[in-house]
């Protein structure tokens, strides 16, 4: 049996859903199980293409579960927890974080989740003032 590319994409998305745990987060154990299953049961002719689609889907899912928090100065862990809590509630899913100290921001926080950006830094405010004067 041969699957078309679009069908393989749909199949990869379904496999991604299977790869989540009870909380809806991606689980490495589940992913391993899915990979073993694919390797065993899927025809080797289209295996490579399905794995590619599955990898993309997993990457996309990981990005959606990951927030990059950039800040200048210091930020206490409780504040990061508070941010994570807020974001998780907002997106209705569990979010992991990567923190980066970026002195160029001067002060404040910049959060990026996939394509969404929340920037409260002083640098951003200065840029807004500059753009207003330039337009």
């Amino acid at each position: 049996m041969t699957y078309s590319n679009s069908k393989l994409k749909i199949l990869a998305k379904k496999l991604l859903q299977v790869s989540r745990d009870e909380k809806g987060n991606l689980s490495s154990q589940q992913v391993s199980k899915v990979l073993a299953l694919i390797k065993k049961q899927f025809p080797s002719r289209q295996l490579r293409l399905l794995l590619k689609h599955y990898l993309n889907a997993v990457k996309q899912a990981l990005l959606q579960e990951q927030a990059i928090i950039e800040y200048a100065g210091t930020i206490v862990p409780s504040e990061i927890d508070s941010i994570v809590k807020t974001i998780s509630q907002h997106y209705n899913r569990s979010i992991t974080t990567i923190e980066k100290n970026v002195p160029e921001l001067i002060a404040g926080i910049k959060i990026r989740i996939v394509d969404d950006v929340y920037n409260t830094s002083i640098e951003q405010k200065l840029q807004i003032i500059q753009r207003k004067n330039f337009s």
Partner: protein
Amino acid sequence: MLDLFNIIAAQTTEAGADLNQFQQITKEFGINGKMILAQIINFSLVAFMLWKFAFKPVIATLDERQKKIADGLQFSEEMKNKLAEAEQKRNQCLQQAQQEAQKIINDAKETAKQSTKKNLQDAVSEAEIIIKKAHQSISEEREKMINEAKQSLTEVVIQTVRKVLNKNLSAEEKTAYNKSVTKELAELK
């Protein structure tokens, strides 16, 4: 009656005397009646011949020439009339041509006048447009310069503020700022 007869007889006698006298005279002068008659006939013949073969053709030629002369004169008169007519026509044409030429000159003058006026108006309009454009260009240039100056000034101010903040904002202040924005974010949900 007898008297009358006598008178006639007398007269006849007188007439006979006269006839004798006449015959005597003619004899003396050598006049011969027959000769005269013959001469008359000859003369008549010559006159007829002359009339027929000399005078008549000459008269015909003369008539013809007369006619030709008359025709020539008539032709000349006609030509004269025609010439006069042609002269008149020529004068009329000349006059008409002069009038037309005058009209053309007047029209040309009027056109030139109007053209000059129009050219002047066009030149004025063009000059006005150029002035307007120049004003607009100056205005735009000025606005551009002001904007550039404003941008440069803003950039300088922003850079200065950035440097000042980077230099003077203490760690505590940054932490306090972060805390406040975190609070703001928490309130966003």
